């Protein structure tokens, strides 16, 4: 019971601003900036959503939504694939240059991201990927975050199962697929959400590499709907609501894997 009290109290603090934001998406522009503020819409209206989905050739919001979905999913899968392979080697295998490699990879996390922007742009241009979703999917997967993340988790996994498998003559590829990955569901699920989101909310990179509105993702796209001079709060919040839905769904789905993690599977046997 005490736990519930603490949780509920904390939850209220966390949720109140979100509810306010949701409420704002149902306000008129002038009510959004009314003084004193209205905590909840006094005259609820859905026209912000109307403006959002007006969908002209200039602002194909559903198309952007789809682009975002493709880019974020592609990015997420690529991150999971390459990072888990590399992390396995860094956590489980011994090889020449491992420490140096790990040092350099993690070291690049320390370099502020924007240093990479212009060079990456020039490289993407050379590769002929400008103005395509490929430019949104691939370069981000080179980041060190996923590798570092999974390596830390793999380090924490007990090795007994690996060894048992090795004795049975399995090779590392098998161990990776049959032992490590299944044991790492919580970590993989978490990384999936986080990498999906980082791509989903990215707003700087698309500005550099995407020129046609047809290939926009939601963040740069929604900014077009915004007026140039005044902040249209209801529409910003409506856009945020729209953009939140897929991530929350993904979160709900992946959390199931987190919950039925190793504590209930694997090791015990």
């Amino acid at each position, binding site marked *: 019971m005490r736990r519930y009290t603490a949780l509920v109290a904390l939850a209220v603090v966390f949720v109140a601003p979100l509810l306010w934001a949701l409420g704002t998406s149902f306000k008129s*522009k002038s009510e959004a900036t009314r003084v004193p503020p209205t905590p909840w819409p006094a005259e609820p209206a859905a026209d912000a959503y109307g403006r959002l989905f007006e969908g002209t050739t200039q602002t194909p919001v559903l198309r952007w939504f789809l682009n975002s979905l493709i880019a974020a999913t592609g990015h997420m899968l690529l991150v999971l694939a390459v990072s888990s392979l590399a992390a396995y080697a860094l956590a489980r295998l011994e090889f020449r240059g491992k420490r140096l490699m790990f040092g350099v990879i993690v070291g690049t996390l320390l370099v502020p991201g924007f240093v990479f922007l212009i060079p990456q742009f020039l490289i993407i241009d050379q590769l002929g990927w400008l103005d395509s979703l490929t430019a949104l999917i691939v370069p981000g997967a080179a980041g060190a975050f996923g590798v570092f993340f999974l390596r830390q988790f793999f380090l924490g996994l007990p090795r007994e199962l690996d060894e048992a498998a090795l004795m049975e003559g399995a090779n590392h590829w098998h161990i990776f697929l049959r032992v490590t990955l299944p044991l790492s569901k919580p970590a993989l699920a978490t990384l999936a959400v986080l990498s999906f989101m980082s791509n989903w909310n990215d707003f700087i990179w698309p500005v550099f590499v995407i020129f046609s509105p047809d290939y926009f993702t939601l963040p740069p796209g929604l900014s*077009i*709907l*915004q007026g140039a001079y005044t902040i249209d709060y209801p529409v910003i919040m409506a856009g945020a609501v729209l953009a939140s839905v897929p991530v929350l769904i993904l979160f709900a789905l992946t959390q199931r894997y987190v919950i039925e993690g190793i504590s209930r599977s694997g090791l015990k046997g």
Partner: protein
Amino acid sequence: MSLDGLTRRRALGLGLGALVLTGCGGGGGPRQAAQQQTGAQATAAPTSYTGPAVSLAFWNGFTGGDGPFMKRLVEQFNGEHPNIKVAMNVYQWSDYYTKVPAAVTAGQGPDIGIMHVDSVATNAARQVVLPLDDVAKALSLTEADFSPPVWQAGVYKGARYSIPLDVHPLGMFYNKTVMEKAGLDPDNPPKNGEEYLAALEKLKKAGIQGHWATPFPFTGSMQFGTLLHQNGGRLFADDASVSRFAEEPGVQALTWLVDLINKGYSPKNVGQDADFIALQNGKAAFNWNGIWSINTLREVKGLEWGVAPLPQIGTQPSAWAGSHQFVVFRQRKPDQNKLAAAKVFINWISGHSIEWAKAGQVPARRAIRESAEFKALKEQAAIGSQIDYLYFLPSVAGIGDASAVVDQAVNAAVLLKKSPKDALTEAAAKADKILEQNRKKYGA
């Protein structure tokens, strides 16, 4: 609001538009400005394009409120010119200024676009845009067709790089209900410093802080620049060799703004946009803001408002203004047909800019500005009457870098962290170093 400000003026170019606005907002804007076609055709030399069919990519930052007006103009142009097809792409301004150079580098740049006047020199120096002297000549456009400061603002190092579309000055917006409450005549807003302060005093007695002094560039820095010019000062020497904003006129200007707070005419610590929000909510009587606010205020239900030229606080009239200007982008393979078509397009839009005025702008073209149709746009015309004493930054590459330090000084002073004189003096030393750096970078 801040976007436009931060966007083009310094703040990070970088996609921050998107950052700022992961939201959206349809063209809910000024739809009412109906479709009536304009009569006021400009008088420039007739031009037409007779070559093979071409398509022109036209990029700009006319989102939200502006977008629908320009879109209608482009559609009308396409209808009247079967062999020219203009395709318009719109981006948030800050994104646009980041994206365009990148696209030009990659050989995927647009043919024509719009730039704010204080970005033209920098983009000329960085070879994003092309000189347009021959376009001006072909269209026989001269200073007389516009107004001298607007026309001259598009010249960098002796060559013309842009053709003005509009100017968008500050005006004084006022809340009539609030004025009445304090016993002021809402049809006769203050015109000079004395009247202004007297009005603020009356408002104060009625418990209203009449003019919220905002410490942020939008529009605090613009108010500061305006007052400084009204005091006979300049932000920078005309050739931008040194900064001049810390001289006496500047100190007086900033002191005047800070005194609004000290005398209780403005609250302390005003937040971003709070001044404009306060006006809309009857918390303030006056707000010096851009002409683009017209359509925003029209949408506020039940708000009784008016707009007038800025009061003359100093010894001479002056007002900050921006200006949208046409530019033509550098291409890997220049196409003479496209260039010829671009001329026709620029001239045609400029000639039809009365439609554009309805978006909340003052047409740059004199003939249109002086037409009866423009005068009928009461609010726009009121602000437009300031045309002869608008000021622009010197046309020097990287000038925005130096004026960004002014923003910081205004911020520190209006938030009462530094005295106006100290803030400006420190900023001037910094600005001078930046100007010197830029001379080295772009070649003096």
